[in-house]
């Protein structure tokens, strides 16, 4: 369960401070599927990074499963990221020199999972994303969709309870994108808490709840099915047929 209270993230680049997050208070229950939408620069990625403990809020509190993580040391945050949180990036962030299998094994190497166990779990995770036969391929030898599925295998191989995805289909064509979204849906169906940042209303439609950000604030909270309201909230509502 995620509880945000008056969370700010402020960048200071010499002149005016930029508030990427300007006082966000939000609650996301365990097992929810939430989409985050909003115009470019509205703070979606920043919010996801804070949720993933990849970045620290400038002010406010963030409780993950009841624990205030804003006060934690670097190593304690590493522990959280390793065991409880999975992160999927728009740009995949696979290690180019390593095979798909080695990329999936990477978190387990640093979290001290024994070698044999690593092999087994990496194979299972690749199997689950349908890429077991590509396990020896390097990222450069895989398509964008395949790369993102490897990244999902890597994000889930430690069985985290929270999976965060920042525009996971942003670089993919619609067929590959649909495959990735099906995978995420399946993981959610298995009980994972899923937060997805997206521009695409089709992606958001799959979520139980949609948060619409604007200028670092939550501008609207909608149900996934209320896409009409969503279009209006984004300020680009199409005239109906």
């Amino acid at each position, binding site marked *: 369960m995620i509880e945000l209270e008056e969370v700010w993230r402020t960048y200071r680049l010499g002149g005016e401070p930029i508030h990427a997050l300007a006082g966000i208070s939000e609650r996301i229950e365990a097992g929810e599927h939430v989409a985050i939408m909003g115009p470019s620069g509205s703070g979606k990625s920043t919010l996801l990074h804070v949720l993933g403990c*990849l970045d620290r809020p400038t002010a406010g509190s963030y409780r993950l499963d009841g624990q205030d993580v804003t006060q934690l040391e670097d190593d304690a945050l590493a522990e959280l990221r390793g065991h409880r949180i999975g992160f999927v990036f728009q740009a995949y962030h696979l290690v180019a020199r390593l095979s798909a299998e080695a990329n999936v094994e990477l978190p387990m190497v*640093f979290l001290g999972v024994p070698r044999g166990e690593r092999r087994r779990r990496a194979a299972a995770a690749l199997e689950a994303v349908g890429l077991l036969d590509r396990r020896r391929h390097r990222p450069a030898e895989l398509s964008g969709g395949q790369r993102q599925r490897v990244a999902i295998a890597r994000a889930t191989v430690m069985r985290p309870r929270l999976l965060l995805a920042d525009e996971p289909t942003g670089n993919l064509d619609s067929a590959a994108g649909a495959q990735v979204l099906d995978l995420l849906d399946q993981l959610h169906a298995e009980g994972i808490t899923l937060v997805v940042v997206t521009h695409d209303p089709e992606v958001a439609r799959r979520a139980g709840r949609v948060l619409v950000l604007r200028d670092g604030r939550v501008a609207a909270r909608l149900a996934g099915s209320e896409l009409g309201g969503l279009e209006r909230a984004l300020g680009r509502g199409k005239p109906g047929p």
Partner: protein
Amino acid sequence: MSALDLIAFATTALAGHRLRSALSLLGVAIGVAAVVLLTALGEAARAYVVGQFEALGTNLLIVIPGRTETSGGLPGVGKPPHDLTLGDAEALRRGIAQARHVVPVVIGTERVAHQGRQRDAIIVGTTHEFLAVRRLGVGIGGFLPPLEQRRSLPVVVLGSKLAAELFPGQNPLGRIVRIGGWRMRTIGVLVPRGVQLGLNLDEIALVPVGTGMRMFDRTSLFRILIELGAHTELEAARERARAIIRERHGEEDVTCLSQDAVLGAFSSILGALTAALAGIALVSLSVAGIGIMNVMLVSVSERTAEIGLLKALGARRRQVLAAFLAEAVLLALAGGVLGLLAAAGAGQAVSWYVPALQIRPPAWAVAAALGLSVGAGALFGLLPALRAVRLDPVAALARAGG
């Protein structure tokens, strides 16, 4: 994370940029090889010179007629010194308890001939103890026999090269050679020993001292060699020798030389040479260290995103540092071992072409070269990574388009 995982991860990273790793490996190898080889060369030169002196023994006292120490009067002015005689040698033998050998020596140049072959050679008149004092060896036959010193005996022991020239392809033992007007029987040939302090021992002929004095019509010895049991007895023996000569000649008209002073000076000069070479080599090693730093610096700035990723995946700071440290140390270690192998090979080659220089890298140089390269690798590998691991994962990830 096990050490094996750490090494495996570091290896994939090094293999990931092969050319850069290879270049920096080469840099370290050259640095280490330079340190080891240059210090080994300096050491070999020192060992060579010291060996030259030690061949004569550091326990050696040399008594020379005439006073060369400046104690008044101009050299060559005043009355000539007394002869240094076989009687003096005998008195020194009896009077110096610490003496192991007392060897009179007379020297001259004569024509040595056998059946039309002839050449000028240095003739050394001495006793059987010369063999031990000059560390010579007999190849075939025997050496000069122990004789009552004044006795003359027409026998000669030839240097190896002289023997080969006079008796090409023949056994010289028992054959007669002519030395000046003297007919001498060959009783032995020395083993080759080469040049020792300017005297080519392979080209000399040795005769009994009594014979030598008559042959050259000398009344004075060239010098008397006194070998002592131990180096520490040198000063006491020197005093004793002076006293004995003073008593016999009525004045101290001899010079007593020992080799320590010369040896010490040479040794310290060559020690300084080695130190200078080591200094030069250390510079090349630090250049190699900077090479590693460059590799790691480029590597880290190129891989800051990777550091961010590793942290995002749950790696702790210390683990990330350890991974980069392992990478740098592996590189330095591999370069160091390669450098040692290269140095060993080059040392062998030098020893092959210049047998007098026995290249044996000093253990301290090997240890220092390896230690320094690994140390520099660790330091220069760690420094750039230290900055990167402090970043929050997003900040690091944002540094490069991953």
